[in-house]
């Protein structure tokens, strides 16, 4: 059974998302809405990460670790200047899509397994992942024209 592999992937991407929100909150303290919302959304991911633990334990004796390659690539460079915020939000959005896709895959397995608890966990977490992505997209749309056209 390869479900544990995907649970590991999910757990790992949720953890990366949590850390990335925290990182962006800290890095962009001068943008009050960014700092506070990223802290809140990081807390959401922390909670999601906690909720997945039960299923990791249930379906796998040993946790499968996925290297956090994705994050390294996404947040590799130390960005500066006005583009930094837009690019950081951009990368956060990509991470939410990774989490979302993991959930889509796991949900299919949950349906096959008739695992009601896992389905419920999906319903709760994935809806909030979507809301994280929605906020990021709203904020990206707002920042994009100013960043690309006017800011130096």
């Amino acid at each position, binding site marked *: 059974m390869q479900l544990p592999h995907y649970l590991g992937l999910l757990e790992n991407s949720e953890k990366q998302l949590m850390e990335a929100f925290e990182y962006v909150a800290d890095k962009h303290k*001068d943008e*009050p*809405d960014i700092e506070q919302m990223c802290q*809140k959304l990081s807390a959401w991911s922390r909670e999601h990460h906690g909720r997945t633990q039960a299923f990791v334990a249930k379906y796998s004796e040993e946790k499968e670790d996925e290297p956090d390659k994705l994050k390294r690539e996404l947040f590799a460079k130390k960005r500066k200047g006005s583009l930094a915020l837009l690019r950081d939000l951009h990368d956060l959005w990509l991470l939410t899509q990774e989490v979302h896709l993991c959930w889509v895959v796991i949900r299919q397995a949950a349906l096959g397994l008739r695992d009601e608890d896992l389905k419920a966990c999906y319903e709760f977490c994935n809806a909030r992942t979507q*809301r994280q992505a929605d906020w990021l997209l*709203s904020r990206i749309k*707002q920042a*994009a024209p100013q960043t690309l*056209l006017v800011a130096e």
Partner: protein
Amino acid sequence: MKETRDSIQDIWGQRTGYEGDWPVRVDERIEEEPDHWVQSACVLCSNGCGMDIGVKDGRIVGVRGRAVDSVNHGRLGPKGLHGWVANNSQDRLTRPLIRRNGKLEEASWNEAMDLIVQKSKELVEKHTASSIGFYTSGQLFLEEYYALGIVGKAGLGTPHMDGNTRLCTATAAAALKVSFGSDGQPGSYSDLDTTEAILHVGHNIASQQTVLWMRVLDRLAGPNPPKLVVIDPRATYTAEKATVHLAPRVGTNVPVMNGILNLIIQAGQINQEYIEAHTVGFEELKQIVAKWTPERVEHLSGVPAAKLREAAHILGTCKTLVSTALQGVYQSMQATAAAVQVNNLHLLRGLLGHPGSGIYQMNGQPTAQNTRECGADGDLPGFRNWGNEDHIKELAALWNLHPDQIPHWAPPTHAMQIWRYCEQGSIKLLWISGTNPLVSLPDLDRARKIPAKEDLFVIVQDAFPTETTALADVVLPAAIWGEKTGCFTNVGRTVHISHKAIDPPGEARSDFDIFVDYSRRMDFRDQDGNSLLTSTWQTTEDAFNAWRECTRGRPCDYTGLSYAKLTGGSGIQWPCNEQYPDGKKHLYEDGVFNTNIDYCETYGHDLETGAARNQDDYKLIDPKGKAFLKGIDYEPPHEVPDKQYPLWLTTGRVVFHFHTRTKTGRSKALQEAAPDSYVQLSTEDAACYGIADGDMVEVVSRRGKVLEPARVGDIEPGLIFIPFHYGYWDKADRPRAVNELTLTEWDPVSKQPHYKYAAVHIRKVNA
């Protein structure tokens, strides 16, 4: 000198107890006998009292209330009776100023406008119109906002335009949009004449809208007085009259309102039929509030469970109800979510759309409603939806432009973000009109550095020298109320005309003339090459008539109004059109709201994150005219008292002043009645810190510090209060502006800053 009453000593005057028809009482104060009277309305709060200006030899010599006006039935408050004196002040700005070699020097209008136009053109050429921002007011007239809206959105095409209304009533608009699909107060002041119960949440109405409070006091003094529920952490004048006064801890409005709704739902006091026919979202809301038992609310908010039950009993059993909310809700944590709970209360009980019941998501300023209606803030003219391509096309057709000229790729930039872009340098020209941000913005130390930046060109258009004009590159002297003709709309949808009574001093010009002149000099043209404003806009009446067309078919329909119709009688409520030629007292009488996908002003937000929804999202939830019941759970404030900063600070107003006192501080009577700032603290805290009345107290937050004389009592322990009016233009010997202490952060939906809480420490500084 003649005055019908001493409004300084007796703020609200004699009682005329009643139920049904509020008796007329004409308040008047004149310094000399006028030659003639000119019709106007008061601009010193959002109430919009009908008022005549007395003129003698080309000067204002007094005012009197208009008996015929539906808003005030002749009454005026202390600010209305005394504030006009400022028009005659020797301090008025009378000539344009240009900064040369670091100093502001007098210049001609031509020089000033040429400089502005040259700078604008350079910036547009080099950086696009998004390098230009506008920060306006809740004090201009609707013709001026509409001109400004067109200049910014059609002429330049910049998305960066907002008002100081963002600091004061953005949440009112946001909450109305969330619940009902568009801005616009559902009820009328006349609902107070018969209502069984009144709820004031975070709204010190006695100090804020003295004349509306007279109406409440008169009801309380008459037969069958209404029961009064007041939610406010301070023992204000308003709270003193309450049947039940709840004093929650700062930042706990949502738990308190959730608790009240929970009790009402539990008791079966809801109108199930109305909920089913006219709302969506009941089950989710029920689930959210179900957790908030009175005991849990008490634990978190400090409001005793028994008192919460008393309040809920009144609000759950009254057959009619008028509710109001203001800054205690709007400038606090979870602002929009808490304000929406007031709407929910009425929706759950079916208490709106009929006489005796109404909701006032209050405004603070006299013309804030027009800032929102006319597109001079983060909204589009006529309550149009920036996410609806058809609405953009309507505007483009009105202005004869290609729709893409009107910025609508994202919500119009909100004020705090405009300031942030200025701070970062991507907005390079900021045009401020009719407001004094260097006293009114939060975290003043940070705010003050922005206009001082070399790469930001700042234009300030005002009637008086202020803390903000001091840092401007160009200062334009503005004509004010009494010196120009225009219309404005009060918080209750009542439109008044204010006729020109006297000439402005020196070379001062109306905001309208300034914006139209800018448009002419910039040579803004429509797609057929005709001048955008100047070809058709000779007078403000032309602008008003153009505005009427812009509102046709929209909720704020002005098509039945004209200068002639507004002159001579009472103010008139919109919608005023063929169907409702005398205006309309109640919106949503049939329980059909403005939420239809083609009509709504917004596709909504995630209440918790503020993420904007688009048309496709809305298609899935289009309630087709039903109202939204929405709620969220409690979230603690971002800054809470700790060991280092152990007290809460909150801010608010005093009855005798308006905003940063640029006018009221120049009225001798008002200034003497409230000459200086102060810090109010509880007797318990005063004893603990060894502070007595009048002692000088140092108040320090993570952002800054102020020194204020102490005033002891009438406030909960752990909380201190400082009024927001006082800055430095008339007294610069100590730091005293409370916004030295406040936080830069805002509500995720309405983007209104959180002035109502900050963690501070205090100490006595004199022996």
